[in-house]
C-alpha cells in the first residue's frame, strides 16, 4: 500500500493553511497577481504567486523574537512544518526516531541579495552571512521542531521536494526511521526573478499551462511538509491516515542543462519507475497533477511523455501552477498536498487559463473543477539539470 501520510501543512499564494488552500482550490481561485514584497525593476512585467504575509507578519505569527536571523525561506518553512506536525497530532518528536528532510533551491538568497554589499561593515547585516547556504533554514526548522538526528536538505532544482518525499519514504521503508517530516520551502527572490527572465521563460500575464499560446511561467513561493509514519507507529498510535505514498521514481533526462528532451525521456522513466514501485498499471491512475509550468518546452515534453506512458489514454490531468505559480523547490510538496486533497475530496482541480490545445498533441487538461472517484493520483516534478521525479498517492 505504501507509506502512511498522517499530517500535512502548507503556506502558498492561495492560502496560509491546508484549509485555506483547499477552499481556494475548490473555488478555482488563483493566487497569482502583482509582486508586493520584493523591489525589482521587473515588477510590472511579471505576475507572481506570492505569499501575502510579510516577514514581520510571519515572525509575529510564529511567535519568534523580533530580532532573529531566519530568512523568508526559513519563516515559510517553519510555519508549514509546524502545521504539518500539529495536523499529525505529534506534540513531541522525541518519542520515535524522527527525521526532517527539507528542500530548497535559493536557501537564504532573499537576505543575501539584500545585504551582501553590507556584510563587510554592517553588524546588523552580518547575521545573514551564515544563513545563505541551503542547509540553514532546514537546521533552524529541525531545531525548532526538536528533531536532532537525521536532518537534511535536497537541492535538485524544481524536483527537490519530490525527492525529499521520496527519500523520507525510502528511510521509513528501510526501517531507518519511524517518522519523518518531508517537504520543502522556497521564497521568491530577485535572483530567481532575474534568472528566469534571462531564460525568457517568464510570462508577463497569467500562465496558461498546456495551451497552444502559452508564453512562460509565473514564479511563486511556498512551503509545505508532509508527515510520514511507519505502519507500526500508525497501528500503535491508532493514527488516522490521510493517504498513502505508494509510488516514486527518479530519473535523469540527460539531455540538456535546462531544457527537456523532445520525447520527455526523463519524465517517461520517472513515471515508469513510480508505477512500478506502486505496482500499478497506467490505467489505474485516475488523475495527474502535471508539472505543467506553461513554458513552451516543458509542456510539450511532458505531454509527449504522458502520451508514451498512457498510450494515448491519458487520464484527467491539470497543472495547479496556474493557481500557485511555480514554487520551484516546494512545487513537489505543494502538489503532494493537492494530490492528497484530491483524494480526500474526490475532486479534480482546474488548469486555469487554458483555451486552445497545442497542435502537436491536441491534449486538453481539465479546466474546471469536477467531482470524480479517485483512487490514485500521479504527480510530476521536473527540474533543471534533467532531474525528473514522479510520486503516486493512493486513497487511504
Amino acid at each position, binding site marked *: 500500500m505504501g507509506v502512511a501520510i498522517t499530517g500535512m501543512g502548507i503556506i502558498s499564494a492561495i492560502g496560509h493553511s491546508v484549509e485555506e488552500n483547499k477552499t481556494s482550490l475548490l473555488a478555482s481561485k488563483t493566487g497569482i497577481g502583482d509582486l508586493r514584497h520584493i523591489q525589482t525593476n521587473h515588477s510590472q512585467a511579471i505576475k507572481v504567486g506570492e505569499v501575502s504575509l510579510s516577514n514581520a507578519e510571519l515572525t509575529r505569527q510564529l511567535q519568534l523574537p523580533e530580532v532573529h536571523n531566519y530568512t523568508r525561506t526559513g519563516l515559510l518553512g517553519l510555519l508549514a512544518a509546524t502545521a504539518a506536525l500539529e495536523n499529525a497530532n505529534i506534540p513531541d518528536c522525541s518519542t520515535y526516531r524522527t527525521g526532517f528532510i527539507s528542500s530548497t533551491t535559493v536557501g537564504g538568497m532573499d537576505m543575501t541579495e539584500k545585504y551582501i554589499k553590507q*556584510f563587510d561593515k554592517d553588524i546588523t547585516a552580518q547575521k545573514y*552571512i551564515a544563513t545563505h547556504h541551503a542547509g540553514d533554514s532546514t537546521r533552524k526548522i529541525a531545531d525548532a521542531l526538536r528533531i536532532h538526528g537525521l536532518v537534511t536538505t535536497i537541492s*535538485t532544482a524544481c524536483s527537490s521536494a519530490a525527492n525529499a518525499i521520496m527519500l523520507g519514504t*525510502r528511510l521509513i521503508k*528501510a526501517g531507518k526511521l519511524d517518522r519523518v517530516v518531508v517537504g520543502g520551502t522556497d521564497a521568491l527572490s530577485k*535572483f530567481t526573478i532575474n534568472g528566469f527572465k534571462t531564460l525568457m521563460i517568464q510570462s508577463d500575464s497569467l500562465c496558461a499551462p498546456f495551451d497552444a499560446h502559452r508564453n512562460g511561467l509565473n514564479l511563486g513561493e511556498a512551503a509545505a511538509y508532509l508527515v510520514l509514519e511507519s505502519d507500526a507507529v500508525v497501528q500503535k498510535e491508532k493514527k488516522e491516515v490521510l493517504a498513502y505514498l505508494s509510488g516514486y521514481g527518479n530519473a*535523469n533526462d*540527460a539531455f540538456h542543462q535546462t531544457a527537456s528532451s523532445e520525447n520527455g525521456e526523463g519524465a517517461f522513466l520517472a513515471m515508469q519507475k513510480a508505477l512500478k514501485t506502486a505496482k500499478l498499471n497506467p490505467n489505474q491512475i485516475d488523475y495527474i497533477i502535471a508539472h505543467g509550468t506553461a513554458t513552451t518546452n516543458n509542456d510539450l515534453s511532458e505531454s509527449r511523455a504522458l502520451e508514451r506512458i498512457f498510450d494515448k489514454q491519458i487520464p484527467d490531468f491539470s497543472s495547479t501552477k496556474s493557481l500557485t505559480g511555480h514554487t520551484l523547490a516546494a512545487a513537489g510538496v505543494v502538489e503532494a498536498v493537492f494530490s492528497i486533497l484530491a483524494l480526500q475530496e474526490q475532486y479534480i482541480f482546474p488548469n486555469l487559463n487554458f483555451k486552445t490545445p497545442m497542435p502537436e498533441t491536441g491534449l486538453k487538461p481539465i479546466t474546471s473543477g469536477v467531482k470524480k472517484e479517485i483512487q490514485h493520483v500521479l504527480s510530476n516534478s521536473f527540474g533543471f*539539470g534533467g532531474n525528473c521525479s514522479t510520486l503516486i498517492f493512493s486513497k487511504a
Partner: protein
Amino acid sequence: MKKVYIHSAVTISAQDTFDSDGFLNEIKGLSGKTVAARYPNYKDYITPANLRRMAEGVKMGVSAASKALKDAEITQPDAIITGTGMGCIDDTEKFLNAIISNDEQFLTPTAFIQSTHNTVGAQIALGLKCKAYNNTYSQAALSFEWALMDAQLLLQQEEAENVLVGGYEELGKEIISYRRMMEDADGLGIQVPYSEGASFFVVSSEKTEHSVELIDMEVYSSISTESIQDSLKQFLTKNDVDLSEIDVFISGRNGDVFDSYYDLTAELFENITQLHYKHLSGEFYTASPFGLWAAYEILYRQEIPEAMIFKGEIKSDNHIILLYNQFKGRDHSFILLKR
C-alpha cells in the same frame, strides 16, 4: 541486506592528490585565510565545448567523478549522488553581482543556469548520458555524508549495484571572505585555511579484491558534548564492533574550540593511532570526504602518511578505521571502514 564496498576513491584537494600515484608523500603546508585546490588539467576529462561554461567546482566535480568511474572500471553507474554545502557559489555570486551592478539589466543566463546545486550531478549525467537515479544534497558539513547514506540505502535495498557518489565545494570570492572575516573575529575560530575540492567514490554491493567495506555510517544534526561518547558506543554496538577492534581513528580537527568533541571521543580508546587531515585539506563543507579518501588509501595500501599523525604511533596491519567529523559542534558523522 547487501553489504557496501568502496571500489574507488579520488580527491582533488589543496595537496597533490589527484595526478600523483603517491600517497601524501610531498606535503604543501597550508597558510593564509583561504587556499585554492590544486587543479588538474581539466582538458583530460572535459571537452572544451563543455568546459567553457563551467566554474571551478563543476570542473573539479566532473573531473573527479570521471576518474573515480575509470578507476572502478564502471562506465554507467546505477545512480549519481552528489553533496555540496555552498553549491555553485562562484556563479551564484557572479549572477548576483551582475544583478546589482547592472541594475537588473542586460543579464545573461549562463551564470544563473550553472548556479543551481545540482549542476555537477547534472553535468556528470549529461556527459555519461546516464538516465539513472540522480540526487543532490546540501546540508552543510553533512552534504557528502547524506549523499553516501543515500548510496548505502540504494545498495542495501538492492535498488542499485554501483553508485557514483561525491562531494564538491568551490571557494568563490565574496561570501567566503565574509565567512573568514567572521571566523577570524571569533578568537576561538578554525586554525586552518578555508579551502575547496572534489572527492568522488564508486560504491558497490559487490566485493572485489581491491574493495574496502563501508561497515556502516551514522549522522546527527546535533549531539551534546555530554552524549557524544554514548552516541559512538551505540553506533559501534549496533554494528558489533568493539572499541578495541578499531585500529585507526581519523578526526576532522580544525583547531577550533569544538575539537573538544574529538578529544572526548578519543578518550574512549587506548593506544589508538589518531590521525587528522584538515591541516592538509583545509576546511570546507565537503572536506570530510578527503578523510574518507585517505582512510580508503590507508586500508588499501596498508600505509599511513606521516603528515596525518595527530597522536600515537604508526602500526602495521590496520583493518578497521573510524572516521568522525563535525563542524561547529553540529552535523556529526561517524563512518566505519574495514578491509
